[in-house]
């Protein structure tokens, strides 16, 4: 029995043994990893895996179960046990499979997420990339303590089928090349930085320069120091915007709203951010990280505005939350988030700052999901009169996410294209920094 047949069989078997509805997902994947450190291979790893996840609807009750023991004999016992367990739970009539009218119908173009060459790339060529990333810089500066280069790749596929008639498959491949450099700093400090490139296709992976970039990023942060507390403009580079966007997006999820655990409760169609912010969920960009035709329920993804000129346009509502809150469903979560871009590149944004801090990394911190208050550790560079002056670290930023996103001064024109959240660099006004 192949995997698709096995998943279909599992749904059928559940229906025959007491479930009224069922969804099964069979995931398979393989991966490899090579790490080269200084002058030798440090680690190699290879693996392949499979697992079956099944959700069971039994007499208005709901449970979900997963296992990597996908032998049919084991699965029979597993599914029966799952049905028995589900039967003990309290009823929850909101648990239903989606309305089939909302399913993806299988008519979309190929999203180009799979590299047909995946299996023909030799292990030696992969290792050679990790080694070359190290050799680009190892020994080139007496302050270097250690250099690591890593290559990892993988392919994965997931087949989704349910008893309401949905059937769909997603497949993708990825390649990742990274380097990190550790250097002798002031006193006992050994500052470290990194760089990486990631691609869905082997031919699109940047195969050189990653080591050099990691070294540059480490050298520029040597001599980091804490500076005076106060209000500064904050320029967050495109690599790091995700950290402050993430709690804003989390607050749009139905599960948080239904539990009153969101500072965006009752804020639909209201101004939650600066009019400079327009954010779109754009799921069908070819060859893009995060592209997909349907979500975990099989519901078709569509392009949809999330925030338009600062006004919140949607919550992320799946079938369950929709029934639970008695509101229309949207989609369980965003696929690819794109920003309406400004007209300045990163250097032009920097030049516009009189007194500010450019954030190059976050260090811990958290935010309060019901109030939007946040406090994060940061490192970066002081900017004065449009010039990067010195590296700073060991500082915190503290505030409220609504105030922060309400205070956007400029949005850059430099979105990350190698991530599902295509964040550009963003300049914020008046952020509280704590330091000396």
């Amino acid at each position: 029995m192949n995997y698709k047949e096995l998943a279909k069989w599992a749904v059928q078997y559940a229906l025959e043994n007491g479930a009224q509805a069922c969804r099964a997902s069979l995931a398979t994947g393989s991966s490899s990893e090579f790490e080269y450190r200084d002058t030798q291979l440090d680690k190699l790893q290879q693996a392949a895996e499979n697992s079956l996840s099944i959700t069971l609807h039994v007499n208005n009750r709901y449970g979900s179960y997963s296992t990597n023991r996908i032998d049919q004999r084991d699965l029979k016992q597993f599914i029966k046990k799952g049905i028995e367990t589900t039967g003990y739970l309290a009823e929850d009539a909101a648990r239903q499979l989606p309305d089939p009218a909302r399913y993806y119908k299988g008519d979309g173009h190929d999203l180009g997420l799979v590299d047909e060459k995946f299996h023909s790339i030799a292990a030696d060529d992969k290792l050679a990339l990790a080694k070359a990333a190290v050799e680009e810089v190892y020994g080139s500066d007496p302050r270097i303590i250690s250099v690591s280069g890593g290559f990892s790749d993988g392919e994965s596929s997931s087949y989704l089928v349910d008893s309401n008639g949905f059937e769909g498959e997603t497949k993708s491949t990825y390649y990742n090349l990274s380097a990190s450099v550790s250097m002798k700093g002031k006193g006992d400090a050994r500052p470290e930085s990194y760089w990486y490139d990631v691609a869905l296709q082997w031919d699109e992976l940047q195969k050189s320069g990653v080591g050099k970039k990691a070294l540059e990023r480490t050298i520029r942060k040597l001599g980091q120091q804490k500076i005076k507390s106060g209000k500064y403009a904050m320029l967050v580079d495109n690599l790091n915007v995700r950290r402050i966007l993430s709690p804003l997006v989390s607050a749009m999820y139905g599960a948080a709203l239904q539990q009153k655990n969101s500072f965006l409760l009752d804020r639909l169609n209201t101004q939650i951010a600066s009019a400079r912010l327009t954010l779109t969920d754009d799921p069908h960009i070819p060859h893009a990280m995060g592209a997909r035709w349907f979500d975990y329920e099989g519901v078709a993804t569509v392009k949809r505005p999330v925030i338009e000129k600062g006004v919140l346009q949607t919550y992320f509502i799946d079938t369950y939350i929709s029934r639970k809150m008695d509101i229309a469903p949207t989609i369980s979560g965003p696929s690819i988030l794109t920003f309406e871009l400004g007209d300045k590149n990163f250097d032009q944004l920097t030049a516009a700052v009189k007194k500010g801090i450019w954030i190059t990394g976050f260090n811990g911190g958290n935010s309060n999901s019901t109030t939007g208050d946040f406090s994060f550790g940061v490192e970066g560079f002081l900017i004065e009169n449009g010039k990067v002056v010195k590296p700073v670290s060991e500082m915190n930023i503290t505030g409220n996410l609504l105030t922060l996103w309400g205070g956007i001064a400029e949005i850059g024109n430099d979105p990350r294209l190698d991530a599902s959240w295509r964040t550009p660099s963003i300049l914020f006004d008046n952020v509280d920094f704590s330091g000396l």
Partner: protein
Amino acid sequence: MQRRQFFKTGGVALMGAALLPQILESCGAGSKEGLAAMLDHFGVSQSDLKKVLAVALEKGAGYADLFFEHSFDNYLSLRDGAVNRAYANVDYGVGVRVVMGDQTGYAYVENISLNEMINAARTASRIASGSAPGAPANLTERTFDNNYPVIAPWEDVSVKAKMPYVQKLNDRIFALDSRVSKVSASLNDATSFVLICNSEGVLCADYRPMAILSASCVMEQNGKIENAYDSYAQRKGFEFLTDDIVENIAQGAVKKTAIMFEAVKPKGGELPVVMAAGGSGILLHEAIGHAFEADFNRKNVSIFSDKLGKVVCNENINVVDDGTIDHDRGSLNVDDEGVEGQKTYIVTKGVLTSYLHDRISARHYGVAPTGNGRRQSFRFAPIPRMRITYMENGNMEEQDIIAAVKNGIYAENFTNGQVQIGAGDFTFFVKSGYLIENGKLTQPIKDVNIIGNGPKALADITMVGNNCKIDTGAWTCGKNGQGAPVAQGLPSVLVKKLTVGGES
């Protein structure tokens, strides 16, 4: 990809509040005792193990080990007053590791057959390139003290028997405070069967239980909404569930949420910080614990790489990383490379006396491994990890420590922390605490991050209380993409100066 990026930022983090989607009931787990039963459980014989180890050493590597694991995670969840969701996960497989000096080859399979294991061993063996094959020693069973004997194994307990405790937790929280508007509660029990053998002849087994009961509570007052979370975790069977722990969690969640309405954000900047006894051990975990993990030190990339044998703090301070506390979440009878669970002094009278070792780093430094070689599952090669990290008692009363501070912060509840190993900058997020004004706790505070530098913060601990408490929350430590259950503790201490987030 995420894993890789996470690693490359040098990030190691500790998550308290994060509820990992853990989890049901076993489907025929077999006996929990005895090596023969465990070999039987995985359907392998000692001669199979030796064959696989021999293949692993075929290319001349010096060491190889096999880690078999079968784990059952059950998760029961309550929302809106009803226990209406169950989740369970079963995971099964074996990891083959081959070590050549500091170098590691690793492969794992989910289908435990001799053929598949031999293929995995062949893959992992490629880390070595010699021609003279090594020979595995004869396997001898090792047994260890049991730090977590189980009375009622989770695999014998039905969901029906567990549900009333989760329900009671919900009902108690609502009963305790009329401002409560939402409660989410969950019970997570997990059971792992582990079998380990290596080319040096070690053969051992462990049966690892884990239980977490937790609740998150939302309250509303005058149009404001706040929430907080409390949890209790132990390595126990069904006997873990008692009315007492339900009551403690209910009270903890309500108290932590209620204080949020009174709390404000403090003014930020450098301030003296008194760490309350218990969860404050997060300071040790982040400020020094990770930086003492010997993989970072043998690679020379930790800020403490040159500090072994040197004074790192006040001479009255002792810091321990312990795997032997009865039923504690961080305890281990045996680590994930077959080394006995033990108590390790990492700071003795102010001197850094030991790093936390796995086999690779122990060999590198020429010392005995300390039982810190841990992994998230058979999918990962082991690396040095903390267990239960705490500071031994000093001789001060907490009130005298607070009385010594004119203007500072008292940090009491925490959600998460992080550290940069090389730079030494570490952080922890204070969910709630108090201002200290003229030697007294005054205004409650909330939601601030505190940042410091490991060696400086350690040297800045000037007072140590006599009230050490090991926190029993469900802490999970993340490193190189691997999660591991840990615990930490601290007596009340004064850190002379840390940077507190806040308004300017």
